[in-house]
């Protein structure tokens, strides 16, 4: 589909990315991503090393902390190109979530200890926000931290913790004061996954993968130095974290990558219905990108970005889900049959899994219902 960002500098930047990927990406990994096969940890870890050597692990961080130092425009281009070239997406938890928070609110000691390890891939982080009783209503979380000599004793249960099986650290929201308004008694803590009292149970999803976990915290000792910023200010940091990388939230690169896969599947099918639907979805992506660029231009001119970025999340996830639904239609009964060992070329492989797995996009990161409530309340004043 048409690239909207195509000034001479944009084109040169795209070329730099393409050359780098051509030289570094393992062909087997590339092939798995192209086919939409479930991500393997080793594919991501290997690609992380290449990106680390190039200095591109952290698109949003300033250069003095080892970030790529890209402009918002460059980040959009990089996102698009890296998806187009079938590179595995790097995990968000370190580079895009806790990293920027430590840069803004963390102590020098925390920055020195954790930022380099995020970049190098020595540390893998997971996000311990949600609890069995606290999903959309995150502020009602009940994991408790009680002060003790030199730190805190944390007890509670976290759930839906993505890729905790690969993580050695978790950033976690805990209740440090139960007497005040619920948002005002929350702190953010950095927890070592090997610490005594931390245990994990994998949760099997309907697509057969085990990408999420339940984490039990049973009297886990967390040293004082592992509290981010000030005690009881965790809600502010969490909101900043969830709002981070706002312009990337629509996932334009992902949308285009998926569109390319669906178009490939539709080739030669002579299915007028599917072709029309593909064209409509391409136009939807164009509108999402145009809206992103318009908000970006406003932000560069000094208009602060507000809650309106929720619309990017809603639209981007709706488009991706519509694409996976269209994939199912195009694949027909072929998608239901397990692929015989060795026939890796089947383009319909993984279609059902991706359809099922992508249902999560409208649930996590603030469900689309909650995002619409944000638009209605904070943008429209209802």
């Amino acid at each position, binding site marked *: 589909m048409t690239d909207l960002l195509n000034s001479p500098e944009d084109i040169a930047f795209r070329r730099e990315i393409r050359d780098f990927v051509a030289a570094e990406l393992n062909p087997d990994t590339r092939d798995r991503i192209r086919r939409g096969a479930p991500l393997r940890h080793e594919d991501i870890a290997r690609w992380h090393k290449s990106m680390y050597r190039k200095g591109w692990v952290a698109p949003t961080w300033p250069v003095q902390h080892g970030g790529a130092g890209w402009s918002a425009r460059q980040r959009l281009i990089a996102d698009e190109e890296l998806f187009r070239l079938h590179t595995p997406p790097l995990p968000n938890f370190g580079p895009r979530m806790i990293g920027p928070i430590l840069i803004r609110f963390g102590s020098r000691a925390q920055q020195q200890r954790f930022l380099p390890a995020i970049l190098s891939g020595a540390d893998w982080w997971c996000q311990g926000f949600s609890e069995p009783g606290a999903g959309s209503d995150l502020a*009602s979380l009940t994991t408790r931290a009680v002060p003790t000599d030199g730190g805190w004793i944390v007890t509670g249960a976290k759930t*839906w913790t993505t890729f905790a099986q690969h993580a050695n650290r978790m950033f976690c929201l805990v209740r440090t004061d139960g007497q005040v308004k619920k948002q005002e008694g929350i702190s953010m803590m950095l927890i070592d996954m090997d610490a005594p009292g931390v245990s994990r149970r994998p949760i099997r999803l*309907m697509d057969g993968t085990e990408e999420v976990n339940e984490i039990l915290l049973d009297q886990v000792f967390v040293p004082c130095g592992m509290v981010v910023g000030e005690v009881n200010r965790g809600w502010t940091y969490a909101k900043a974290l969830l709002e981070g990388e706002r312009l990337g939230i629509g996932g334009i690169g992902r949308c285009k990558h998926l569109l390319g896969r669906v178009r490939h599947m539709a080739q030669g099918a002579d*299915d007028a219905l599917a072709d029309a639907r593909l064209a409509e979805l391409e136009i939807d992506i164009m509108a999402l990108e145009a809206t992103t660029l318009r908000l970006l231009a406003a932000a560069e001119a000094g208009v602060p970005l507000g809650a309106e970025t929720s619309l990017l999340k809603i639209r981007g996830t709706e488009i991706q889900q519509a694409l996976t639904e269209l994939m199912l239609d195009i694949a027909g009964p072929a998608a*239901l049959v397990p692929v015989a060992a060795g026939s890796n070329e089947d383009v319909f492989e993984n279609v059902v899994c991706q359809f099922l797995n992508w249902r999560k996009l409208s649930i996590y990161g603030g469900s689309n219902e909650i995002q619409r409530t944000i638009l209605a309340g904070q943008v429209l004043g209802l």
Partner: protein
Amino acid sequence: MIRFGLPGEEARLLQDTAERFVADRYGLAQRAVMLARPPQEAPAHWREMAALGWLAAPLPRGVGGLGMAPVHLQGLLETLGAGLILEPYGPAIMNCAATLSRLLPRAQAAGALAPMLAGDRVEVLAASPMGQALVQAEPEGDGWALSGTVPLVPGGAAAHAFWVAVDCGAESALAHVPASKAQVRGFRLVDGQAAASACFDGVSCGPRACFTGAADALAHGADMGLWAALAETSGLIGALCRATLDHVKLRQQFGRPIGRFQVVQHRMADMYMHTEEARSMAQLTAEALEEKDAGVRRRLLSAARVKTDAAARAVLRDAVQLHGGMGMTDELAVGHMVKRLLVLAQTGGSRAAHLKRFQASG
């Protein structure tokens, strides 16, 4: 004539029995045990279903059936659908046995169907989802030499024999092939149902296994198979709706059940409307199956497929969404129902195929 009568006493008894069967035999943990078995094994409760009369129920009395009309079977099929049963009721009975009841002369049909309706043998059709031939038949002596593969035969993994729709020139025809003569690869579909791909290259059929003039029989079987899929879908849609309703009444966020939020209420109201429409279309087509005019019958069946598909898509989307993270897991029935719906959506022909057939019939 379409009547929309209420189900009779007999139909209600059948449905009650089915509800007890599902409750006793198809808890999620019990089902997981069945899913872990090889797909080639005989379906777990097949003989029991035969003893309950369910296998014979839809077939005409003259061939050993109970002669129950589809309208009286809708409740049974909806319940078995909602219960996520793994037995090949649709493919072996509603589709294959129904085809044979029309294909063969009475006495021969009764002979062929007897072991199938007793639950001793499983036989299924090997054809495209809409009953078209995917296998070639060339004359060989008095019989045929077959070639070709059917990539997806529902119920095929444990089948003793296949009725293969073959292309032998002008006429619609079926070849009866014991499973031992075909190359069968058994597997489970994404919903756990046993199925197979079957390759018939190099299979010879003697004259007694070759049946021409099968067009009417195949069309009847396809109609019955599609209707069964629609009735099962209707049952599943209703079950997803009920499970979601229970969830939104129980799940608390922001200090109240999420069912108190108006957005959630409206979604539930939409799900309810889809449930009602799907049930109406299943009943409409149940009655239409007795319609003499094949054109009208097909038109209504295709319409029902298109409408039911839209309902199923909307309901599965909202059922998962309103369950939040829990809806994504393998630990609730919701996820299993969603996967079953994806398979049923392709059974008897997809939405696109039936939309085309509907337009062409106008």
